[in-house]
Structure formats: C-alpha cells, structure tokens
C-alpha cells in the first residue's frame, strides 16, 4: 500500500490546480463551472485523504515521508548544514487533519456555491477557497517545521484575503465608517496580530535549528520513539551526556528529526548543555523557550489571550469563510502545531503550566464575552475562541489526543453552526429584500441582518436551519450523546486526573475554569437559539424569511449527522453498549501512532454527569430568562441580564468585550502610531534629513569647495571647470540641465574627484610621503 501513500502531494496539487484553473479561466465559466471546479478540487482532495487513511491502516500505521515531484529540495546550504526539503508526511495525525480539512472543506465549498450566488467576484472567492486548501494541506502535511510555517503564513494570507473579500462595500455604518473599510481593516488586523504570533514561531524555529541541527520533525526512515525512557533504551540509542559529547554519539542523533532527538535527550534524565553562538543554556531551558515561543504562535493563530482580538473582527468575511477558516480549520493550526511538538511540551513543565493557564483563561473569558453579544456571528466567534481555549488547555494538561479529538468534533459542530448562521443571515436578507419590494421602500431604516434583536420566530420559517442549529447547539454545549459531550468530557476528566493523580495545580485550575466556561457555553448558545428561532418575528425581514436552497441545507444536514455521531469516534472504555458498538478510544489509539504522548482518558461518571448537569441547567436558565423577550414583536432593546441590577455590570462588560480593543488601542496602537510619526517627522526629517545634512554635510563641503577653488584654481586646473566647482554643487546641477555641453564639464569634474587624486598620490612620491601612505 506504499504506493497509495505516495499520492500525498495530490492533496496540495489538486486544490492548486483548481485554484489556477479558476484564476485564469474562471471568468469564462459562469457560476456553475467555477463552483464545480472548486468543489471537485476539494472533493478529490478528500478522496485522496481517505485513500491515505486506508493506506496508513494497511501500512501498520507507520508514518511515511514522501518527496514531491520536481522539487528535489528547498532551502539547502551545504556549508551551513542547513537542509530544508519540501517533504510530505503521512501519519495518523496529518491524515486526521487532512480528512477534517478536506471533508468539512468540501461541504463548505458546496454551501458557498449557494451562499455566494450572484456575487460579482464569485470566481475569485473560489480561487481563494482553493488556495486556502493548498496552504492548509501544506501546513498539516509538511515534514519539517518550516514547511508547516509556509502553510501557516499562507492560510493567514487567505484569511486576510477572505476577511477583506468585500473590501468595496460602500454601506456606511452609524459611526461614519463604511463597511468596506471595516472589512479591509479587519483583514489587516488579522494579518498583523498573526504576525506577532509568527514572531514566536520563527524564533522557535531558529532555536530548534541550532539546538538539534535539523528542522525535520522526523527523518524519512524513522518512526517516533515512544513516550518513556525505557522505550528509548529499547531502541538501543546511544545518548550523549554533558561531559562526554563524543563525535560518534552525536552521529547517532544526527540521523534523527528534532522530535526524536528531544525525546532521547530529555528522557535520559541527564543534564545536557546547548551551546551555539552566544547561547549557552541547558537543553531543558531551551525546550522551555521553544515551547513558550510556539505558544505565542499558537496564541496568534488559535486566538488565545492576548492575541485573540483579531478573530471576532474576522467575522467581516463571508460566512462560509468564517465556518471554514475561522472555526473549523485554520484557527486550529496552533493546536495542531503544539500537538505535533508534544514531545517538547511533554518535557517542558513550566511551559505546559502556562499553556494550561492561557487556554483555560481564554476559554472562560471568551465564554463570558459571548453572553453579551447581539451579533449572531460574534457570539459564535467568541464561542470559537472559547472552544480553542479548551483545546489549548488540553495540550497544557498533556491530553494531546483529547485536544485533537475536540478539534475534530468542534470542526463538525462549529462549521455547522456557522453555516446555519449564514443560512439565517441569508434568510433575513432575503426577507428584507422581499418586504422592501412589496412595500416599495417606504422607510429606509438601517437594517442589520446579523442582529439577533431583530430576529425571532425563524423556527417555522426555516425548519431545517432550526433543527440543525439545535443539534449544533447541543453538540457544542456538551449534551449527551452529541459529539461535544465526549470530547469535552475527555478534557475535563484529564484535568481532574492531572490534579488528583499527579497533584498538579494546573489540573484543578483548568477543571474549575473549564466547567464554568462550559456553563457559559450552554447559556449563550441557548440565549441565541431563543432569540433567533423562538417567539414571534420582530422585524418584517423575519416574517418574510424563507428556508435556504438545498445547496446550503444539504451541508447543514450532513454536518448535523456528524455532530450527532462524531463523538463515537472515541468512546471511552467500559461503557455499556456504546463501547461494544464503537470500540474503546479508537481515535486515541489511532493518534497514538504519531502522537507519542497520547493517552486514553478515563471516563469519570460523576464528572460527566456533573458537566452534563451544568450544561442542562444553563440551557434551562437561558430558556427561562429569554422566554419573555421572545414574545415581543418589536426589536428588543435590552437584555434581561442588563435589567437585573445584580448582573447589569457584568453584562455591560461582556457587551463591551472587556474593553480589549480599547486597551490595545490606548496602550499599544496609539503610542506606536505617535512614535512612528515622531520618528518620521522630527527625528528623521527635521533633524537627520535637514539639520544634520545642512550643517554637517553640506556647509563644510560648500565652504571647502569654495576654499579649494580660490587657491588651486589658477595653479592647476582649467579655469572654466573650476568656476563651476567654485559656485558649489547647486550651481553645477542647474547648469547641467540647461545645456549638454555642461554635461561634459561635470563629467570631467567627476572623473577629477576620483582620478586626479589617484594620479597625484601614485605619481608623486613626495605627496605620498606627506600623506603617509
């Protein structure tokens, strides 16, 4: 089956072909043709990924590294021992990601054909979507961290392009900024904030290279070495110790990728010293640094504190983009990277602690903010931030398999929720147009199709959207037996294990925060369902809303099925019936072939029931609280939480998004801008460009030129030339322009400056002596 595995470059090249075809010929195809090519490219990538899955099973789950055709290398500097090839890695982790990306991706491509219908830049949208797949596949299949980084930045670029896709919308918001600028600026913000994260990834890469001498995760002919020191010994590896760094022993390590090297060196229990350039640190410290820098990168891409601020703004993009890039796939890249480097995180206790704190805090913070949002997509955006916090916390807790499991189920239900919200927005817009047509636009009030205050009663208008949305909500809230229940429970159970069995503080910290965050999740989701679907329509648009076309609802239904059953991928052991049906932690076992520190979580009955209780309670609370609101037939003006004096302040804070953006503006962006203008105007222009130049460079030269001309003039040089010289350079240039004969003279003058001095100095020994040369 090795031959099937060598097909892996196709997951990149098929979307690339689709992208190129649509880029150059898309304008001749029409919507159907463009959509067909886009969807087919994505679908074929999924087929390849599925074949890889089957091939990997037949290959005994052993990872394979494949070289692409044509490109026999990338950055290759023999004299610096820098060898970074283009190489694809097929292992259980990368195939999992490929399946999610292309599977969910294909559904979203399909949905987008319906959603983007009638857009003047329809072909370009599919160019970008396919390009996104190219980079995302590069990210997850790269066998070295730099190739991963190519994908990492590439998906960032696609995110930029797609957030700003509607850069030219001229609708002006009440605050005087047009929608086009809002979209463009949101795109820019996403890219720049992500670059701050990339700074971390780049530094991590530099440190990795100089510490391990390679950027390959694993070399082509090796398999990951298991999790513990004993296993390392089984592989009969010689381990270099601090005192005796012997050439021969180094040789053994030099054939390894950096993850295996780290595994070997970190599990032998000895101190290793890393020395390069000006750096002289213990290996432990270097690994801590590398992992912290990776965390910074993950905070950017996976929207964690303090870099999450770009993700809510990114909702400016078309909704399929929010579903694909800003919920299901791209934003999970940070989690993927950390799980890929689980060997390093496993051995870096300090980093893991910080990762847990960041993840859990993000989870609860974003969950809190989501409660106070009115925009249907903003709620989901903060929800995504919160769920990414769960995954990151799981990485910190060492529950790598649980992190990826949650990544997968989240891709199902969050893509579902976003696509359904797109269907809602579509329905509202459609209804708005409809009501306008029938009333001949009698009042031109501002209409925001994403504002939940104007919705209501869509349950009857859009039944498929409603039912799928509720399924997505149950999955996200962690209701048994939907997908989110299983994956979230694994993370919670692991945090308890870390606290109880290993006695680590981060375990209980994560457990408390994550359970609370789960409560928030259930609450804001049911708040949303109530406001959007229940009660009576609060706007004409809602009254005239209708269900979206099958192109859009079909992906919803498929994702709904996945959201119901996705959790059974990894059912815990010892469950009656379910374990018999679906096997015991199949997914963890599968992942364990590439994620060496993956371990199966226990199932804790009391914890699962407790978490379920919290979720159910939160849903009922939301149901009670918002029951009155939904009876209104006009736009809601305030939230019941805001009217209650006990919660009004908290709601205001959540509604103001905890003022993160304002803080960033005040303490970072604005000072940066002011400093920039100060540097440019005062320092560079007024001082350096004008003052310094005039007094230090120009005046002495001018004076000098006049001095020389006065004395040397009659003795040596033709009077005509020196006259020009004497009046200073400004005069020279003025003349030059006038006549061409002037040019000859200046030319002679220039040669003078060079050659005359040379001649004098070389030909006259006396002068040479005077000059001392």
């Amino acid at each position, binding site marked *: 089956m090795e031959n099937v595995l060598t097909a892996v470059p196709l997951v990149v090249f098929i979307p690339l072909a689709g992208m190129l075809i649509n880029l150059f010929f898309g304008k001749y195809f029409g919507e159907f043709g463009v959509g067909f090519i886009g969807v087919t490219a994505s679908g074929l990538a999924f087929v390849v990924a599925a074949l890889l899955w089957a091939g990997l099973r037949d290959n005994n789950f052993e990872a394979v590294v494949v070289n692409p055709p044509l490109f026999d290398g990338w950055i290759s500097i023999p004299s610096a021992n820098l060898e970074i090839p283009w190489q694809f890695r097929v292992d259980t982790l990368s195939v999992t990601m490929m399946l999610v990306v292309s599977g969910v991706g294909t559904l979203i491509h399909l949905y987008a054909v319906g959603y983007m219908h009638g857009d003047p830049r329809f072909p370009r949208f599919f160019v970008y979507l396919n390009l996104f797949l190219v980079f995302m596949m590069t990210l997850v299949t790269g066998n070295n961290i730099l190739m991963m980084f*190519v994908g990492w930045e590439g998906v960032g670029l696609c995110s930029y392009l797609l957030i700003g896709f509607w850069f*030219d919308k001229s609708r002006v918001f009440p605050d005087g900024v047009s929608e086009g600028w809002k979209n463009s600026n949101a795109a820019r913000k996403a890219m720049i904030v992500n670059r701050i994260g990339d700074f971390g990834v780049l530094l991590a890469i530099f440190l990795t290279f100089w510490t391990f001498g390679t950027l390959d995760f694993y070399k082509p002919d090796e398999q990951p070495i298991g999790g513990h020191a004993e296993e390392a010994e089984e592989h009969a590896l010689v381990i270099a110790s601090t005192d005796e760094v012997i050439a021969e022993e180094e040789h053994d390590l030099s054939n390894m990728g950096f993850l295996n090297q780290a595994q070997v060196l970190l599990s032998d229990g000895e101190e290793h010293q890393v020395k390069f350039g000006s750096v002289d640190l213990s290996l432990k410290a270097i690994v801590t640094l590398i992992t912290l820098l990776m965390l910074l990168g993950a905070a950017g891409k996976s929207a964690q504190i303090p870099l999450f601020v770009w993700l809510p703004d990114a909702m400016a993009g078309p909704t399929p983009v929010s579903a694909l890039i800003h919920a299901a796939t791209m934003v999970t890249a940070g989690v993927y990277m950390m799980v890929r480097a689980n060997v390093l995180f496993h051995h870096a206790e300090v980093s893991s602690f910080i990762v847990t704190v960041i993840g859990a805090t993000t989870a609860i913070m974003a969950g809190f903010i989501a409660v106070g949002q009115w925009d249907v997509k903003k709620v989901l955006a903060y929800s995504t931030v919160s769920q990414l916090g769960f995954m990151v916390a799981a990485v910190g807790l060492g529950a790598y398999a649980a992190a990826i499991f949650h990544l997968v189920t989240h891709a199902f239900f969050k893509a579902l929720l976003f696509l359904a919200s797109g269907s809602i927005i579509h329905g509202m817009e459609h209804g708005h147009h409809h009501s306008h047509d029938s009333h001949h636009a009698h009042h031109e009030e501002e209409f925001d199709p994403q504002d939940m205050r104007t919705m209501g009663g869509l349950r009857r208008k859009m039944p498929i959207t409603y039912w799928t949305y509720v399924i997505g909500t149950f999955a996200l809230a962690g209701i048994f037996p939907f997908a989110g229940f299983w994956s979230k429970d694994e993370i919670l159970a692991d945090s308890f294990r870390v606290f109880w069995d290993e006695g680590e503080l981060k375990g209980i910290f994560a457990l408390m925060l994550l359970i609370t965050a789960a409560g928030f999740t259930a609450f804001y989701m049911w708040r949303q369902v109530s406001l959007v679907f229940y009660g009576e329509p609060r706007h004409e648009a809602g009254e005239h809303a209708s269900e979206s076309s099958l192109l859009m609802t079909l992906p919803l239904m498929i994702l709904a099925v996945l959201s119901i059953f996705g959790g059974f991928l990894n059912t815990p052991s010892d469950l009656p019936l379910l374990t018999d049906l679906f096997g015991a932690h199949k997914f963890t076992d599968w992942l364990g072939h590439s994620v060496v520190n993956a371990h199966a979580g226990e199932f804790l009955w009391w914890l699962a029931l407790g978490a379920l209780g919290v979720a159910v309670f939160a849903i009922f609370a939301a149901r009670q609280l918002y029951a009155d609101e939904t009876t209104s037939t006009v736009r809601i003006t305030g939230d019941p939480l805001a009217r209650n004096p006990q919660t009004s302040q908290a709601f205001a804070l959540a509604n103001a998004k905890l003022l993160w953006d304002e803080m960033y503006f005040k303490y970072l962006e604005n000072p940066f801008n002011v400093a920039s203008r100060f540097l440019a105007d005062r320092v560079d222009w007024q001082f350096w460009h004008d003052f310094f130049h005039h007094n230090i460079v120009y005046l002495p*030269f001018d004076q000098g030129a006049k001095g020389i001309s006065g004395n040397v003039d009659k003795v040596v040089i033709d009077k005509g030339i020196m006259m020009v010289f004497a009046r200073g350079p400004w005069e020279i240039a003025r003349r030059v322009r006038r006549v061409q004969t002037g040019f000859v003279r200046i030319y002679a003058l220039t040669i003078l400056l*060079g050659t005359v001095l*040379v001649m004098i100095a*070389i030909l006259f020994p006396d002068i040479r002596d005077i000059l001392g040369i």
Partner: protein
Amino acid sequence: MQLENTGVSIVSAVLFSPLVGVLVLLFWPRLTDKQVRIATLINTLVTFAFSLLMLSQFDSSKGMQMEQVDEWIAGLGIYYHVGVDGISIWLVMLTTFIMPIAVLASWTGIEEKVRLFHGFLLLLEVAMVGVFVSLDLFLFYIFWEVSLVPMYFMIGMWGSKDKVDFFGREMEARIYAAVKFFLYTVAGSILMLLAILYVGNKAETFDFMLIRDLMRSGQLVFTEETERLLFVGFFIAFAIKVPVWPLHSWLPDAHVQAPTAGSIILAGVLLKLGTYGLVRYNLEFFPNAAIDFAPYIGALAVIGIIYGAWVSYAQTDVKKLVAYSSVSHLGFVVLGIFAMNSAGIQGAVLQMVNHGVSTGGLFLLVGMLYERRHTKAINAFGGLWKIMPIYSGFALVIALSSMGLPGLNGFVGEFTILVGSAGSDTLDIWYTVLATIGIILAAVYILFMFNKVFMGPVTKQENQELEDLTWGGNWYELSALVALTVVIFVIGLYPKPFFELMDGAVGDLVAQLDATLQVAMK
C-alpha cells in the same frame, strides 16, 4: 608581481555589451524615440542573454572563474582583470535582469531627451556590472565612480517636478536630491580611495586575487590599527551606499525624485554595490577588524531594520514609504553579512537579489500609478483592486514578497539571514530577536500601504477610470511585472540552485573567517 594575459572571457562580453548601445545612441544619425527605446531594450536583453550564457557555463565546484586578464597600466601593477564567482555572478544576473525592466518602466514615462536618458541607462549598466566583476581594485574604483554619474544625471534631469524649500531658498527638489546623492557617495568613496591606495601600495599590486592570496598566505599582514582604519575606509563608502543607518538621509530624496527607472535601478542594483563591497572587500581583506566591529555594525543594522520600518509606516507618499522600507530590508542584508557564518552570508547575497526584485517591483508599480494619476499620495487612492484587478493582483504578490511571505522570495532570504544571525559567533542572540520584530513591522507598513491604496471602497472620482493592464494596451508594463513575478515565485519555491552556486565561494570565505575567529576567541 605579474599576471599572464588570458583570452577574452564571456564576462567581458556581458560587461561591454551595453557599451555597444551607448555608442549607437551617441553616433547613429537619426533615431526616433521609439527606435531608441527598442534598441535599448534589445541591447539590455542581449546583455541578459550573455549573462545567462555565463551562468550556464558557471562551474560551482570552482571558485573565481571565467577570468580575463589584460595588461593595462603595467608600471603600477594595474590590470584589466575581471571574473565571477558564486557571489558576484548573482549580482551580475540581478543587474542584467533589472535593466530591461528599467527600460520598460520608462517606455512612456520618459519623453524628453530620450536618447540621452537611454545612453545613461546603458552606461550605468556597464558601470554596475563592472563593479561586480572587477578583480582589480583600481578598475573597481573606476567603475564605482562611474556608476555615480549616470544616476546623478538621471535624478537631476529626469526627476520629479517638485519644489523644496531649502532653508529659505526655493529650489528644485530633483537638483537637491541629485546633489545630495552625489555628495554623500563621493564623500564615502574618497575614504575608500585612500584605503585602496594604501593596500595597493603595500601589496605592490592592485589585483584582488593576488592580494587575497598574499593575505591568506600571511605574506601581507596589517597591524591591528591599520587594519581597522582600512576597514573603516572601505566600510564608510559601502555603508553610505547601502545605506546603513544613520547614513541613509540621501536615500528618500534620491528615490522620491528619481524617475521610475532610476528608482528601480537605485533600489534594485546600486544599493547592492555597497552590500557586495562589504562581503567582497571588508570581510575578505580585513577579517580581524570585521570581527571586532561586527557587534557595532550589527547594532546599526538592527536599528536600521526597526527604524526604517517604523518611519516607513508614517509616510504619506507611497514612494517614500517604499524608500524607507529599503533601509529596513538592507538592514537584514548587513546583519546577515556580519553574522559571518555561511547561512548569514548566503542569505544576505540571496536577499540582495530578492530586494532588487521586490523593491524594484514596488517602485515599478508606484511609477505606473504615478503615470496614471500624477500623484503618489497614499490617501489619493483607495479601492484600486476593484478598478484595476490585474494590476492589483501583481501588486499583492510583490507586496507580499517584500514583507517576506513564505513561499515567495523575500522569506527565503530573510529566514536564512536570521538563521545565520541566531547562531552567529559574532552577534548576540538578541540581535536576531530584535531583527525578527522587523518582520512584524514589515507587515505593518506594507499592509498599511496595500490597504489604503488597493482596498476599501472607491471614493474618488479620478480613480474610477484608471486603466488596467492588458497585453494589447500596455504590454511593456505587463511584461515587466510578469518577469518580476516569475522570479519571485522561482526563488521562493526553489532557491536551491541559487544557494548551490554560491555555496563554494561563501564556504571558502567563511572558512577563512572561521579560522580568524578561532584565533580571535583564543
């Protein structure tokens, strides 16, 4: 010391091929403007073809090759001696590649004294290639000085029509800029001349190869102080040209005032004369001083990276923004050179090429906009992506290349440089940390520019009718952009052959530096 005369080398063909054009333009009786342009384009393309031939004959297992030696001023030990190695060949390739693009960029922009302008272009090409291929210090110096002249006139005669207030006097901005460019460069090169004379005198030859052998074999040794003085003599000349912060204040003037072709050549090639000189002369001849000075020069480079980017962000003129970005980008190159290891130097050499392509491309784009709108003010635009989708697509690729997006050329250079500086024995790790911040800032100013010019709704009436690129309408613009874009992708996706060719030359240099470094560290 004597050198044997050799036969004619292809390097000479590359070097003097543009001179044929200069002679034609000088003496051919009647030529219409169009004929001048076509003749010049053909001439530069032929030169490029020669350089491709040279590239195909290059043997990466050898060091300096395709040498040609002819007696010139025998009594003083001055020869006509040219040749290329893995470092200089890429800069020659860059020059011959950029020149046709510069000709295409002036296709409609230059309407006065067309013949003279193109004569200067070709003369400049001779001078620039000459700097890269000369293996005689004297010859090098001649070319170095000659390269100044055409650029001086291109800025002064075909520059913008702006006026500046020069301490109470109103003067034409292009004159101010031209003279400033002239003054700074000459001031630097005089110091270099003295240093060259000293070295030539002491070695009793001006031949680069001979001097190098003498130094490597220990027959030519300078005292510590002399070496430092000589190092500084060369360094200041090169640093002004690069420009290394804080010697950059001529750059924004020269760039903003120069015609499009002038800016392209200035950014594309002329600045690299400086960085090339640092590698070829400062590192090769004065390794001890280079090691001593590396931390300080590295600091200037890092300041330049951050300062250039930061200042760039505050600009309101597109061309000035791009000009300051050069200060930032070349800071990376200097950092790589003074990392003094193989990754750093190879990254620096590749980044010289990359910067020529991407910043040259940015200036080309700005020139196209200027011809359409007669303004370079950033806030005069907005929403161009909707009006000129093809132009904007190219602009996106070139802007991304400039901000170092992986998969495009800029990233390969910057990454390699930073890998080098991170593991450098001469530079502390903090240099790398700070320089990497420059990568964040690059995104800040490039995206600021891209957003303001290309995104957002179209609000200005004048922008509604701007002409996009088509093969029928403006093939010269489109073909120039296509050529640049192809190179951007080739270097970004497959830089291996570029490194392969320079590995021998740089490896050789680094071996020498390492030996010196080992002694210095003991």
